[in-house]
C-alpha cells in the first residue's frame, strides 16, 4: 500500500513540477504570460476541457472511453443556437444544452451497457451521428449569434473579473470530488471498473452504474458545448474538432488507468492545468497549433509510458 501511495505521490509531484516548469519557462519567454488577465484567460480556456474531463474521468475509471465529446459540443452548440434564435432566453438555452447532452449520454450508456457493445464503438457511432446532424441542420454554415444573452456562457463575467465558465468549472469539480469520494456511487464506479464481474457478484447493478456515468458525462459535455458555443459566438458544426483527445489526454496524464479502476480526480485536475497552460503558453509564443498537436501527442505517450513503468516496478 505504501508503495502504491508513494507512486501516486511521485506521479502528482511530477505533474506539479512540470506545471511549475511550464509557468517559469513561459514567463521567461513571453512577458505577457504571467499577467493576471492571461492567467484568468488560461482558466477560461481550460474550463471547456476541465468540465468534460470530470465525466471522462469516470468513464475511463469504468475502463470505457468516450470519443463523442467533440461532436457532442458541435451538436449542442448548433441546437442551442437555433433554440436561442427562437426563444431569446438564456435559461431555456442552458436547460436545453444540459438536456441534449444528458440525452446523448443516456443513449450512449444504454447501448453500451445493455447491448454489451464496447464504448469505443458506441461513442464512435454517436460521434458520426452528432457531427453529421450538426452539418445537415446548418448546411455547413455557422449559426452566428452575437447577443450577449447567448455568449455570456463563454465570455461573461461575474463581478466583472471572474469568467462565468470558470465558476461553472469550479462547481463541477467540487461536485465531482463529492460524487467520487463521498458517495456510494463513487465507490461503485471504482469497483465496476476494477472488476465488473465481481461487482455484479457483490450485488451492484453494473449496467445502471455504467448508464449513470455516461449520463453524467453527457450532462457535462452539454455544459461544455454551450460554453464553447458562447466563446465561438454561435453554433458551429465543425466546433470541438478532436476535443475528445484533449479531454482524454488530461485524464490519462493525470494518472487514470486506461484499464479502469484506478485514478484520482486530483491528478486529472493537474492534467487539465498542465495541458491548458501548455496550450496557452505555446500560443503566446506564437507556436502554431499544428505544433501544439505534436507536443500534446508526445506528452500523452510519455504519460502512458510513465504509468506502465511505474506499475511494473510496483
Amino acid at each position, binding site marked *: 500500500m505504501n508503495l502504491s501511495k508513494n507512486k501516486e505521490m511521485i506521479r502528482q509531484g511530477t505533474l506539479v513540477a512540470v506545471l511549475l516548469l511550464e509557468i517559469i519557462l513561459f514567463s521567461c519567454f513571453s512577458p505577457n504570460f504571467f499577467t493576471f488577465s492571461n492567467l484568468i484567460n488560461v482558466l477560461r480556456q481550460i474550463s471547456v476541457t476541465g468540465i468534460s474531463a470530470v465525466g471522462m474521468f469516470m468513464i475511463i475509471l469504468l475502463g470505457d472511453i468516450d470519443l463523442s465529446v467533440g461532436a457532442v459540443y458541435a451538436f449542442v452548440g448548433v441546437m442551442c443556437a437555433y433554440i436561442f434564435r427562437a426563444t431569446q432566453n438564456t435559461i431555456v438555452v442552458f436547460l436545453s444544452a444540459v438536456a441534449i447532452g444528458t440525452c446523448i449520454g443516456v443513449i450512449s450508456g444504454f447501448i453500451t451497457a445493455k447491448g454489451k457493445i464496447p464504448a469505443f464503438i458506441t461513442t464512435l457511432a454517436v460521434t458520426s451521428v452528432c457531427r453529421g446532424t450538426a452539418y445537415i441542420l446548418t448546411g455547413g454554415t455557422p449559426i452566428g449569434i452575437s447577443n450577449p444573452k447567448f455568449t455570456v456562457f463563454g465570455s461573461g463575467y461575474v463581478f466583472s473579473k471572474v469568467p462565468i465558465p470558470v465558476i461553472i468549472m469550479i462547481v463541477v469539480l467540487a461536485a465531482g470530488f463529492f460524487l467520487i469520494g463521498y458517495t456510494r456511487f463513487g465507490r461503485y464506479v471504482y469497483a465496476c471498473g476494477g472488476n465488473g464481474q*465481481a461487482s455484479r457478484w457483490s450485488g451492484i447493478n453494473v449496467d445502471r452504474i455504467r448508464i449513470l456515468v455516461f449520463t453524467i458525462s453527457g450532462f457535462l459535455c452539454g455544459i461544455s458545448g454551450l460554453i464553447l458555443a458562447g466563446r465561438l459566438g454561435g453554433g458551429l458544426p465543425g466546433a470541438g474538432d478532436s476535443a475528445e483527445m484533449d479531454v482524454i489526454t488530461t485524464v490519462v496524464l493525470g494518472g487514470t488507468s486506461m484499464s479502469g479502476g484506478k485514478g484520482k480526480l486530483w491528478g486529472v485536475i493537474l492534467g487539465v492545468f498542465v495541458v491548458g497552460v501548455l496550450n496557452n503558453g505555446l500560443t503566446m509564443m506564437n507556436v502554431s497549433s499544428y505544433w501544439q498537436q505534436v507536443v500534446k501527442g508526445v506528452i500523452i505517450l510519455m504519460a502512458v509510458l510513465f504509468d506502465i513503468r511505474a506499475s511494473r516496478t510496483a
Partner: protein
Amino acid sequence: MSDVILQMSNITKRFSGVTVLNKVNFNLKKGEVHVLIGENGAGKSTLMKILTGIHQKDEGQILLVNKNGELEETELKNPVMALERGISMVFQEFNLMENMNIAENICIGYEPVKGAVLDRKKMIETAREQMKRVNMEEVSPTAIVETLTTAQKQCVEIAKCLSHDARIIILDEPTSSLSEKEVTTLFSLIRSLKASGVSIVYISHRMEEIFEIGDRITVFRDGEMIDTVSVAKTSENELVKMIIGREFVSDHLSEKVVKHEEVRLEGRHISVGKFGKELDFQVHKGEILGVFGLVGAGRTELARMIFGIDPIGDGILYKDGEPVRIANPRDAIRLGIGMIPEDRKNLGLITKLNVRDNLTLAALKRMSVILKSRAQESSLTEEYIDRLGIATSGQQQIIERLSGGNQQKVVISKWLALDLDVIILDEPTRGVDVGAKAEIYAIMRQLADEGKSIIMISSDLPEVLRVSHRILVMHDGEIKLNRPAGTLDQEQIMHAAIS
C-alpha cells in the same frame, strides 16, 4: 549421493528488506517425485522461481549436474538459462497461447525454420513426437489449444517441457482443476516420466496425492526449510504438524447430532446444466449442507442459479416457504442469499482496491442511502479483521498483496457484514493453506450455530465429511444421495458421485 542432480544450498532471498527465504537447502535426485509442501507464503514458490530463473537468489549456491555426471555451480539469471539447463515449470494457470494450435505452442520460441520460413511439417512432427510421450496421440497437433480440456492443456505444457529436454519439471498444484479420472491419468504420466529419468518437483496441498505419488517431501514454513523426509517414513499427522508448527486437532462435527427442521431454502424442478434432468433440494435453518460431486456434476451451476447469476428456467425457489424470483445477484442479496465464488480473483474480489473497499462493497447499500461514511466503513472493517483474524498490514492494504487464505477471509467478511440467512460457498478452501482452512471451517460452524444456512460445494471428500451436517452428492445434474453426514463414509459418497 551420486544420484543427486540438483543441490540448492543456503539459498536466501529478500524482497524489499523482508526475508522470504532463509538459508534454505534443497536437493533433487534423478527420477524422483519430490513434493514441496507448506502454507501459502511459506517460500516454496519463491524457491521454484529462483530455480527457473524468474527471481535471483541473494545468497547461496545452486549446483546442477553436468554432462559428466558431476555437480557444478550454475547461475540461473533468467528463464531461458534455466530452460537450456533442462529446468521447466508448469504453472497452475498455464502459459499457453489459447488461440494457437498445439504444435505452435510446443515449439514456441524454438520454431524450426527452413531459411526464413517456418517449417510447419517439422513443427508438427516435433509436436507429435512429444505428444506421444505424454499419451496424447489421439489429439491432432493442429488442434487449437482453446478447444482442449484442462487436463489436455496440462499435457501440452508437459510436452513443451519435454521438447526442451527437461531433466527437471516443476508442477505447481497440477491437480487443482482436474477430475478424479484425469488425476489418475496424470499420475501414470508422472510415473512414466520418472521411469525415463526425469525428476519432478511437485507442489501440492493435497495429502492423499502426496502419499500416492511422492518419493520424498520437503516441508516449508515461514521461509525456512523445516525438513526433508521420505514418504514411506512419515504420516499425514506428522506432516501437518510440521506444516503448521503445532499439533493439529481434527474434530469431526458429524458426531454432534442436531435436528434441523425449519426449511430455509427449497428448490423444486430445477434443471441444471445441459443434462435435461430435474432436481429438488432443501436447506434447513442452522444447517451446513455439503454438496459433493466431481467436476462437471452441476454443483456450481446449481449455486449460480440460486444466486441469480444464471436463469433458473422452470425451477421454483422457496425462501422461508414463500416462492421467490431471483433474476440477478441483487435480488438474491435482498432475499438474504450470498455466494462466495470459487474464482476469488475474478468473481470475488476487486484486486485493485484495498481490504476496506472490498470488505464493505456489498454492505455499502445497507449502510448508506447516498453518502458513505468513512468511519462506519472503518469500524466494520476493523471488526471483521479482528473477528476472522485477517492478516493484513492495514485496512488500506491492496488485496493483491494478501495471501490466498486471507483474501478468502475478506470475501467471506463481505457477506458476513450483510447478515445473510443463506451463504453458498463454492470450494471455500481451494488454494488456502492448512491453518486458514481450519479457521474457515470454524467460521462456517459458528454461522450455522447462529441459525444461518450454509451450502458448501466441495470436491474435497474429507472436508465434506468433516464439515457438513448433511451431504448431497450430485452427478450429471442429479442428486444421487441426500443423507446426514454421520451416516455416510467416503466410499459411499464416492460411489454415488461416479455412478
